[in-house]
């Protein structure tokens, strides 16, 4: 199997340092992004640490390495905007303002989980923060998200929709069916594709021809489309903001291909490079482009953040995480009767 050797190493974090007009953003605003990314990182690391206990009996898919995509994109959304996604839910739920206790309870399959233990990690739902649907079927949520956008358009809602997908999801025909409809009707939706070059252990080159770039295909279907460095939270944010504005103003749907690398195995805890489907050196290479660390370096260099504040932030997050795990573990399990509720709605 041919490996993607250090693909996409040309960009990295240069754009931060050169391009940013830092005074166009408030300091708090910039720090919030850092905090949000670090929070996702620390939460997932704690999930990983405890996963072997076999108390979270739920298939997890960690987003470590791709945090800037979640945070930069959701940062451009309003609280009332809706997000839909696939199996890799944690980053999006948390970046969208998700409740950590409800998420951890769901991973522990407790009644206090955001889906009452019926969903698990792949199925986080939480209407209160706009986490409107996630599907374990690749691309399954894309048409559904498009239908939500249709509703928003027909009844003139102020909210719009963001649909998250992986690079493999564009191989599903349903994605193109949904996109065709969205362009046809000029629906207010942003399709946000996280290209991490892999579907489970299958590299993109065994699934898609090299001469057909994802964001260009999207463009040919009539989507406003752009490709960004998915490890650069500000680049992701700025692109998302533009696209969200475009969609919200009624001009039609948009597409972002955000390139970043997944550091962990497809599912479960830890890196699985040793199994041989990717070169461990490739993971190491990509870890140079750590969205969290690079952004910290950037903020530090701009004198917007220092080691002390950073420590304070991470302590705060750690306390929150500890509390959430305790809450989850001490929450009740469902009872047999719960199995038979909500099969049908009244």
């Amino acid at each position, binding site marked *: 199997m041919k490996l993607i050797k250090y693909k996409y190493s040309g960009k990295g974090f240069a754009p931060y340092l050169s391009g940013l007009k830092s005074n166009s953003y408030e300091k708090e605003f910039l720090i919030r992004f850092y905090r949000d990314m670090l929070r996702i990182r620390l939460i997932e690391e704690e999930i990983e640490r405890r996963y072997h206990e076999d108390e979270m009996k739920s298939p997890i898919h960690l987003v470590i390495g791709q945090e800037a995509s979640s945070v930069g994109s959701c940062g451009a959304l309003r609280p009332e905007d809706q997000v839909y996604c696939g199996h890799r839910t944690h980053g999006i739920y948390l970046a969208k303002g998700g409740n950590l206790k409800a998420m951890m309870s769901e991973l522990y399959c407790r009644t206090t989980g955001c889906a009452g233990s019926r969903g698990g990690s792949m199925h986080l739902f939480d209407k209160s923060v706009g986490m409107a649907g996630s599907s374990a079927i690749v691309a399954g949520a894309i048409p559904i998200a498009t*239908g939500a956008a249709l*509703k928003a358009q027909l009844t003139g809602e102020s909210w719009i929709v963001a649909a998250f997908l992986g690079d493999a999801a564009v191989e599903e025909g349903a994605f193109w069916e949904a996109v065709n*409809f969205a362009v046809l009707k000029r629906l207010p939706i942003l399709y946000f594709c996280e290209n991490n070059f892999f579907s489970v252990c299958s590299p993109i080159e065994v699934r898609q021809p090299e001469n057909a770039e994802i964001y260009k295909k999207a463009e040919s279907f009539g989507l406003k489309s752009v490709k960004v460095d998915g490890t650069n939270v500000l680049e992701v944010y700025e692109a998302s903001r533009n696209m969200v504005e475009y969609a919200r103003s009624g001009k039609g749907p948009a597409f972002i291909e955000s390139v970043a690398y997944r550091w962990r195995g497809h599912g479960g805890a830890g890196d699985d490079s040793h199994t041989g489907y990717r070169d461990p050196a490739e993971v190491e290479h990509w870890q140079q482009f750590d969205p969290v660390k690079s952004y910290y370096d950037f903020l530090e260099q701009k004198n917007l953040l220092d080691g002390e504040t950073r420590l304070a932030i991470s302590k705060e997050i750690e306390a929150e995480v500890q509390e959430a795990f305790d809450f989850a573990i001490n929450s009740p399990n469902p009872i047999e009767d719960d199995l038979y*509720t909500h099969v049908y709605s009244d």
Partner: protein
Amino acid sequence: MPWAAALIASKETSIPSAEEGRILSYVEALNEALALALEIDPHVLVLGQGVNDPKGMFGVTTGLSAKYGNARVFDTPLSEEGMMGISTGAAMNGLRPVYLHNRPDFLLLAFNQLVTHASKIHFMDNGKTKVPMVVWSAIGRGWGSGAQHSQAIQGLLLGVPGLKIVMPSTPYDAKGLMLSAIADNNPVVIFDHRWCMRQNGVVPEGMYQVPLGRGVYRRNGRDLTLVGTSHTLEMAINAVDSLEGEGITADVIDLRTIKPLDGEIIIESLKRTGKILVVDTGWEMGGVCAEIGCLVAEKAFYDLKAPIKRIGLPDVPSPAGFTLEQFYYPNPEKIANVIREMVCKQ
């Protein structure tokens, strides 16, 4: 000869009814139900390939887009899976889409959205999201429809939790069940039969509902319980009526919906007659006949005085040629012969 017309019923018929109202055709009754729903609820949508073209789905949708606008009554791209998901997403957000298909065969393209998404979301998110949508299609039979254009797939969907399945047999029910389906907060699949389309019958004006999950007697008799839905009712009634002269009478039960399935009415009747014949428009194997046969052998075994019998389609794809079609499909004579055998064997 315009074959689209040839493919619906070849003659006008009617099933006598105790209800009061005007005489309308099955198609008119459906049209009226949709118009009424669009009228009273601005959240109702009617969509599907050709719903606003001059043929208007056999007339079922005629005039609707002119009256209620192309935003609410609209043609769709040829994207069954995508549009099923889009309908689902719209429904999850409070619209009430009625998604129409010319033939059930096309639903097979959308099973992922229908079976794995629409039917399960309410359960998966612990009852927070409702999916009030109707998926309608018109079963074809004969005149060269063939293996890919006349599949009666209700048996394939019977096992799917969270779904409701409706198969009306009269204009009265076509309207009343459609209105109930639209009012229902769950995904409801309606299979209408092209051979019912030219049936005339009593249809009250205005709003009324026929409850989902409750069967009804169409004939009362002594010797046998005959259970069916949709177009089989007409055949069943003809068969039973033709046997009156021979002194044979039967309960004829119209289930109206096959999921939820009204086991009570079946068993109530069987307690009197001791014998049961199930007729269905679909394949015998693993379908509606099988479920009812098993149900009775499980729940009313001690009332059963003879082997259960089923008449559906043999385990063979639909042929396209006229001659083979005659051998393939049930008809009143075949049904009458089976009844005669069952009753006389004793």
